[in-house]
Each structure stands twice: as C-alpha cells, then as structure tokens.
C-alpha cells in the first residue's frame, strides 16, 4: 500500500523534473535553432545599420553599460542597507517597515518602474532618455534583490565569528569588513548574479527610460538600445523571429559568461578565505 503510494509519488517527482528539463531544453533549443543561422562575427561585432544587415555591437555595449552602472550604484547601497538591517538595527518597527518596503518593491511589475523612471529621472531630473536614467531605474529594481540576498547570507555567517572578533576588542565596523563581509561574500555574489539577470532581462523599464536608439552610445547620457529591448522591438515591430532569436542567443551566452565569471570570482574569494 505504502509502497505503491511511494512509487507513484516517486514517478511524479521524476515526471515533474523531466517536464521542467524538457520545457527548458525546448526553449533554449528553439532559440538556438531559430537564431543560430544569423550568428556570425559581423553580427556580434559589427555596427548596426537600420537599412538592414549590420551587427548588434551597440546593443551589447549598451547592455554592459547598464549592468555596470546599475550594479555600481546598487551594490554598495544594497549591501550597506542589508548590513544595517541585519547587524545594526534593533529588530522593531523601523526594520519591519524597511523590510516591508523592500519586499513590496520586489513585487512591483517593471512597467511601473518604467513609468516612474520616465517621469522622475528622464523628465523631472532632466536626465533625458539615457543610459544613466535607465540605470538609475534599474538600480531601484535590483536594490531589493541585493538587500534580500545579502541579508540572507549575513544570517548564515556563524555568530561565533562575530563573537570571536568582538572579544578581541575590535569594533563592529572592523568585525564587519574584516570577518563578516568576507565570509558572506559568496552569498552576496549570488545576489549580484540574480540582479544581473534581472537587469539583462528587463525591457519595459529600459524602453521607457533609455529609449531605443540603435547606435553606439557616445556616453552614459546618450539614449541607447539594450539587447533585450532590441529583441523586443524586432519581435513587435518587424516580426522577425529569427533575428529576435539570434539576439536571444547572444543574451543567453552573455548571461552564461557573467554567471561563470561571478562563480569563478566567488570560488577565488572563497579560496582566499579558505
């Protein structure tokens, strides 16, 4: 009886896992199947031309810009905020409010961030449609992600490290940057990876704040088009599925590279820490 039930459940578990893997393989497979024909050196490293042909280098550069700037701003703020919530704050109403705020931020659809960014950063702060406006908008989008994951990884740092350090007559701050942050680093990095994914995958919010200019950005105050926005436009306006898929391939590879780099760094850091 129990055995039969066990076997059925086991079967279901295998089935679900199979289904998940199958679906995911299908999606990636489809994107590669559709897009691989367009992939070439010129496609990836060529400049874009509106009259057909041309490459997507400007979009790749823009994508990297947005990732770099958003993370540059969001990472310190996010980590320090998490440090405050986890290490400094007396758990109470203020902390709960801040937690609630960050949690609610994760639940807001990105189109709403886009609208906000378009009015606040683009118009009110007069940044114009630009990489910087988009990056600031993205900063707000990923801030909660970074805060949450950092908090979680701070939680896993053994209390004994804190005690050991403080008992040596060090300050909280010293303990923090010498002992706690280094050992929380792998977790923090995985939060950053997640954030990168979110930034790369975003379209609605970027579209409304950075615009869609398909040219190499002169500076971070230029309007520009990220890879994801490009694949979005190509799908919606031109209906060119193959091109969208080809851009998708580049995106997937980019995500893969960034993930591997981060994992590598995290391993390195871990080794440095032993």
């Amino acid at each position, binding site marked *: 009886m129990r055995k039969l039930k066990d076997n059925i459940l086991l079967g279901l578990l295998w089935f679900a896992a199979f289904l998940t893997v199958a679906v995911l393989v299908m999606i990636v497979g489809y994107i590669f199947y559709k897009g691989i024909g367009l992939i070439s050196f010129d496609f990836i490293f060529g400049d874009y031309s509106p009259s057909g042909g041309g490459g997507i280098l400007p979009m790749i550069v823009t994508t990297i810009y947005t990732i770099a700037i958003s993370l540059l701003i969001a990472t310190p703020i996010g980590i320090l905020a998490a440090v405050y919530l986890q290490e400094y704050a*007396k*758990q109470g109403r203020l902390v709960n409010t801040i937690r609630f705020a960050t949690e609610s931020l994760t639940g807001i659809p990105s189109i709403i961030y886009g609208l906000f960014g378009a009015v606040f950063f683009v118009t009110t702060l007069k940044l114009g449609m630009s990489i910087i406006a988009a990056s600031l908008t993205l900063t707000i989008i990923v801030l909660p992600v970074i805060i949450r994951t950092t908090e979680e990884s701070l939680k896993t740092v*053994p209390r*004994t*490290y*804190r*005690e*050991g*350090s*403080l*008992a*040596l*007559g*060090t*300050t909280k701050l*010293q303990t923090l940057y*010498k*002992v706690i942050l*280094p*050992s929380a680093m792998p977790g923090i990095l995985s939060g950053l990876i997640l954030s990168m994914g979110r930034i790369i995958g975003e379209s609605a919010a970027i579209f409304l704040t950075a615009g869609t200019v398909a040219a190499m950005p002169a500076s971070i105050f230029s309007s520009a088009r990220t890879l994801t926005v490009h694949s979005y436009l190509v799908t919606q306006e031109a209906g060119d599925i193959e091109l969208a898929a080809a851009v998708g391939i580049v995106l997937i590879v980019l995500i893969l590279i960034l993930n591997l780099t981060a994992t590598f760094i995290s391993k390195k850091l871990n080794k440095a*820490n*032993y």
Partner: protein
Amino acid sequence: MTDKSVNTTEQQKKIAVKDLNLFYGEKQALFDVSIDIKEKEVTALIGPSGCGKSTFLRTLNRMNDLIDGVKINGKMVIDGEDIYQTNDVIKLRTKVGMVFQKPNLFPMSIYDNVAYGPRMQGIKNKAELNKIVEESLRGAAIWDEVKDRLKSSALGLSGGQQQRVCIARAIAMKPEVILMDEPTSALDPISTLKVEELIASMKKEYTIVIVTHNMQQAARVSDKTAFFLNGEIIEFDETNKIFSMPSDQRTEDYVTGRFG
C-alpha cells in the same frame, strides 16, 4: 612580577563582583552573584547545564551586550573600575580576552588569525607583528606544530590545534584576564591534555576563569572553584575543598555525580 607573594591582598583582587543580577528579557539567569577573583589564579566555574556559568563568564567582558534584551544590575569591578560604568568596551575586551567552547578561528591563515587583534589595534609594522605572532603561538604551546604553515588556512588544523591557536589569538592582545568557556569540550583527550597543560603554565602570567563540565578537569587545573546552581553561586572555595569536603550538600551531590 610573577611572584604571588609580592602582591598585597588588595592587589590580588583582580575582579570583584557584587550582587550581580542578570535578566534575559523577563527571565532572570543570575541571582545576586558575588565573587572575588584573584590575580594569577585559575578559577573554575562548574555546575549543571543551564545554571548560568556561560552567562556569568560573558558578563566579565560584556559579551552579553550583544544579546538583545539583556539587563544587568549589581557591581562588577575589574582593576578597581566598574566595567558597567565605562563606555569603553573596546578597552575592556582588550584587557579581558576570551576563548570559546568551539574553536572559532576566522577563515584566514593561521598568521592572520593571530595578527588580527593587534592589526585592528593599529599595529602595521611587519616585524612587530611577526614578533607578536610568534610569541603568542609559543605562549599557546603550538608554535612548533604550525611554524611551517603559518600562511595556510587555520581551518585545516585539528580541533585541539585550533583551540590552542584561539588561545594564541587571545594572548596576542596581551590581556590580563583570559575567560574560557568549556575550551576542551569539543576536543579529543590528547588535545585536551595539551590545553590543560597550557592553562597550568599560563597562570603564571594571566588571571584565568574557566567554565567546565568536566569535574576532573576542574580538579586538575584550577585553584578555586565556584559551583553554580540555577543562577546562584552555591559554594566558592579552594578547589581541593570543593572536591573533597564541600560544605553544601548540593555541591557534594554534584561533584560526586549524583546529578548532572
């Protein structure tokens, strides 16, 4: 300096605790604890689990400050200064070192672990640091075992070695008092023996307060023993006396293994 007889009785009183009460939120964990701890002696704290030994030990360097909702009243004087009246916890903790139950080395090299405290005090000079590290590791009777691997991870050491490096880390701060909370409970017999020998040799220079669950250990290493029960000190006396002819029935029950 190391000769006890030179000190007057007053000087010998390194730590004086009077009517100390401690509460975790509503719950009282220490009741009217009074005890005088003499300089350069080893004082053992024994008692059944949950009786407040660790709690008391941690009041001595104000580690309980880290726990939310802890309230303390009473008087605790170290070297004539009420440690709960000062704001300079850093100074207190530099003077009163601590070794924990489980070796809690940081995930760094052996060298960096021992140099950690001095560095945080602002010592940057390489030669000076080297000297401190070597002296401390020697003081903790671990130098010979680790001198060839100072730059490798401290976490690769055995439990007993780690615990001695922890002691070295504490010594490196040149403290006057060293608190130890069941420092050998996670160790194997051989390591335990080494740490015990170390404690015996360290009392020439340091005032040591040690919590232990192990009656034999208390008997072996300490000069004085305090028996805790339910947050109170039932008896505090020469170790010999506590183990051979305690004056309280409960102490006797405990040390003869009638409970716990």
